[in-house]
């Protein structure tokens, strides 16, 4: 077996990095998933606030949506159906406790900030603000955060 030259070794390491990067980009490529998820969360909070009597079946509807999303994101067939050719998981890119916490930190921070604003200003329909914020977070920030986390996991 011929040992690679330093140049060949460096080229091989670049190949490894590029391969991982391709998968990471592909995992967050389907933007419509984030948009649909964000809208679903916002519409749920809006409907829940405006029609409180319909609360139980709205919750069932949201749970059904989440179930479909989990099947779509976690299974081979589901992933193919929603246009994601790869499944990325904790097994392929393990996430440390620090990064697990970082993933939920923005959600917690924003949630606390909205709760403070809603309670201090005594705003009505607080649930809608939460829903709007969660929707915006899912649509705009989640894909970027996911990309950064996956890159970070790859480096770790």
């Amino acid at each position, binding site marked *: 077996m011929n040992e690679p030259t*330093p140049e060949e*070794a460096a080229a091989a390491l670049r190949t490894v990095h590029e*391969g991982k990067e391709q998968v990471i980009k592909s995992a967050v490529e389907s933007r419509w998933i984030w948009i649909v998820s964000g809208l679903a969360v916002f519409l749920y909070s809006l409907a829940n606030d405006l029609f409180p009597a319909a609360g139980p079946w709205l919750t069932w509807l949201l749970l059904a949506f989440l179930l479909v999303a989990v099947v779509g994101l976690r299974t081979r067939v589901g992933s*193919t159906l929603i246009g994601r050719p790869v499944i990325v998981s904790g097994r392929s890119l393990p996430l440390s406790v620090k990064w697990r916490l970082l993933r939920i930190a923005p959600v917690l921070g924003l949630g606390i900030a909205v709760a403070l604003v809603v309670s201090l200003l005594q705003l009505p329909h607080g649930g809608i603000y939460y829903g709007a914020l969660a929707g915006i977070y899912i649509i705009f920030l989640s894909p970027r955060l996911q990309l950064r986390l*996956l890159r970070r996991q790859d480096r770790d």
Partner: protein
Amino acid sequence: MAKLDPLLLDPTRLAIVSLLAAAEWAEFGFVRDSVQLSDSALSKQATTLSKNEYVEVRKGYVGKRPRTWLNLTDAGRSNLAEHISALQAIAEKARSDGAQQPRDPSVP
């Protein structure tokens, strides 16, 4: 010291395995397009990797269309990690040797 894996010295096989390393499962078509191989060339490489238990191949249907998915096994994952460490050691050694070498005064 980490050892180089003879199977992964082939650049095409290394590209396939690297791609699969970041994924839990990847579609055959995605791997084929990413490493720029033909169906038959990827199929051949996947068979070699599968025979050596680096890659697991699953076939199924999505609607009426047949699909194939590839997954890097735990053995494949750990062999790739060791191979990467060996490559890093080679690159690192060359870098430190280069840093230690005195500069040639005749070179401007």
